[in-house]
């Protein structure tokens, strides 16, 4: 299970970076975690992606914490982000932006509480 998760994460980050190729877009300083997630992550992890679909709701809070604390650097450092200047993902996303993405992921995790609606 763990191995599968590691591989998926690695693939996730890898394709994430590859997917963001030549456009060196830098989100505004005021960008929130959701915008940053869309900018840096979603492109490679949409529904049906071979890298695995990842939204905040894919993992529980503990899993996201573990990912950002222990797996992110290892699984993303060799993934080139073509969209943002062709650098490794870990060099593309600033520590401040990464913190916002982390907060967004954890706040929206699959075990975060939200009221049910019918629509």
């Amino acid at each position, binding site marked *: 299970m763990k191995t599968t998760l590691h591989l998926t994460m690695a693939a996730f980050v890898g394709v994430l970076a590859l997917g963001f190729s030549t456009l060196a877009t830098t989100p505004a300083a005021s960008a929130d975690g959701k915008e940053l997630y869309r900018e840096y992550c979603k492109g490679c992890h949409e529904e049906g992606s071979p890298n695995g679909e990842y939204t905040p709701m*894919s993992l529980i809070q503990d899993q996201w914490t573990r990912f950002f604390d222990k797996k992110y650097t290892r699984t993303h450092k060799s993934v080139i982000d073509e969209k943002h200047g062709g650098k490794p993902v870990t060099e593309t996303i600033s520590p401040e932006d990464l913190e916002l993405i982390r907060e967004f992921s954890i706040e929206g995790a699959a075990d*975060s509480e939200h009221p049910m609606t019918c*629509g």
Partner: protein
Amino acid sequence: MRIVMLTTLIILGFAASATEAANKNRHERFVKNYEGTQTCLKCHEEEAETFFHTQHYQWRGATPDLVNSGGQELGKLSMVNDFCTNPTGPQWIGKVKNADGKTLAKGCSSCHSGLGKPPAQEISREQLENMDCLICHASGYRRDLYATEDGGWEWKPILWKNQEGLNSVARRIQIPDRTMCLRCHSASGGGPNFKRGDIEYTLKDPPRSFDVHMASDGKDMTCVDCHEGEAHRVRGRGVDMAATDSPDAPLSCEGECHTATPHEITALDMHTDRVNCTACHIPTFARDEPTDMFRDWSNIYFSEEKGKYVYTAEFEQNVVPAYAWFNGKSRVQVPGVPVDRIESGAVAIVLPEGSKDDPAAKIHAFKVHRGKLPVLDDKQWLVPIATEEFYAHGDIDKAVREAAESFYGMDEIEYSWNDTIRYMGIFHEVVPREDALGCLDCHRPGGRMDWQALGYDGDPLEDKLRASR
């Protein structure tokens, strides 16, 4: 002596921790791999059988507190209401999408404690496995609607592809806390605080100024501290619930928690015979989220913001309650019988029973919800609306006709739109005593009490003062 005290404190400390631990995460060693409700049933079949018969699962039940039900079982499932009208038929479950692929509705079963199958009258293995124990008992549990292989729909944990995460959540079993109850009860009627008015998601962690009972810096009470009954049944039905889950254990402020003379001022204690606590201690409701006060299904339009057709609604925030007598019994609009209208011509969806001359009645705080619903011209029966059909196409006439067919089996109908009125008891958002109503809120010209509507000639205090002179 010091050693004895220290030892006692340590023991008490361990006891408190043990109680908390027993309440939370006590399934850590039982749930190895969560495989749906059958995992729970391995140990809890008996509990599931009790739950099957409750209002939370059946959405209907015995109606000893209705004066006009004729003894029949009624409830959300069998009645027509002035919010989403009725959950049966196509609106029970299924995704309605617009042209852009945006999901407009998922069905009323989103807040049923089952996994998608409607509740049956007869208990069966299929029905027991349809129960979603986690929706009430697991912290951090979330579910969504998924298509089944046979073309139907089912509610599943959103973690169904993440077994490690799902197992973690399924082990977090506990007696429901406020958050778990609010998952469904704070967003009923279609959105945040739309329906009830006094059950907002803010109650998850409210300040004391918002609710003295549930505030973490107040009593920090959970919903089940008051509402827990025997065998999964719930105590308290408010005013507008048709069925009573625990008829032998009515819920009241007075008795288990408060005395009949709880004030330190005699003049205030003199009120408690005829005035319910809610009248003074809930000066306003919907204090954070606006609540739906008027829903007109006859006046529909396309909302660019929501990307779908919608009814016309009026929302209000910080609403001053209406006041009326209530003796614990209600009169409801029973489906399949001619409608009852009040003087204004509005169909009475729910009215509280009681009057000034009824010694069992007290003045209570109410949300008065108004609406507009179809009524059959000939039979004068209230008709629900096929809301999924409406959201999809915006054809309200077709939605009324489809509902008449699925609900009453009628394929040719003539109908007219009629005003409706419904009294809903307000029991939550109890403020600290310093923020409760004062004498002059009611006992002055232009005060908040409509004395004539309550059956008095004028302010009863003036009569008493006049008599004492």
